[in-house]
């Protein structure tokens, strides 16, 4: 009996190791989203720099100062933000799904929110835990 339980415990131990392995992020869906976002980033970068948009604490990008965008460009910036945030939401969901843990979506989003802010260039605005915009 003891022997059986011991064997069972041994058999289950690799599960713990598996849980600590890298997350799967190399799927066609994730790569597609990543490339769309990288392409869009070139257009968003100038608006990060002007302070028009900032890195929100919920893992999205948000308009923080519409006045920093020339009037004729505002609709285009809103369109970019909408597309970017849709891709980001899809990305968080897809990473959770690709790893067989749809319930991880919120935690993946939180992790990304911190890392987007951490990797932001100097001069960009990031939202702190209290919701205030802080210039990096």
């Amino acid at each position, binding site marked *: *009996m*003891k022997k059986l*339980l011991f064997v*069972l*415990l041994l058999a*289950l131990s690799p*599960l*713990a190791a598996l*849980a*600590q*392995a*890298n*997350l799967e*992020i*190399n799927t066609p869906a*994730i*790569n597609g989203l*990543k*490339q769309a*976002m*990288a*392409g869009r*980033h*070139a257009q968003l970068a100038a608006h990060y720099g002007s302070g028009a948009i900032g890195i929100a604490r919920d893992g999205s990008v948000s308009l923080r100062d519409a006045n920093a965008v020339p009037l004729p460009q505002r609709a285009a910036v809103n369109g970019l933000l909408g597309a970017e945030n849709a891709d980001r939401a899809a*990305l968080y969901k897809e*990473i959770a799904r690709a790893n067989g843990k749809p319930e*991880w979506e919120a*935690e*993946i989003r939180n*992790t*990304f929110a*911190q*890392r*987007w802010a951490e*990797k*932001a*260039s100097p001069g960009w605005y990031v939202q702190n835990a209290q919701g205030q915009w802080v210039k990096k």
Partner: protein
Amino acid sequence: MRATSILSALAAATLAAACVTINIYFPAAAAEKAADRIIEEVYQLRKDAPASAPVPADKK
């Protein structure tokens, strides 16, 4: 015999606890690493991996 059943019960409880731990466990460090790899490509911070090129499988 009694000792054996107590031990078995204990082992079973440990096993159940371990399973629960595995189920709720979120690999924060792995998630951070995965996030960084994606973000560096989106922000184009990686000079060796342009956004237009697919990610090489060996870059883990």
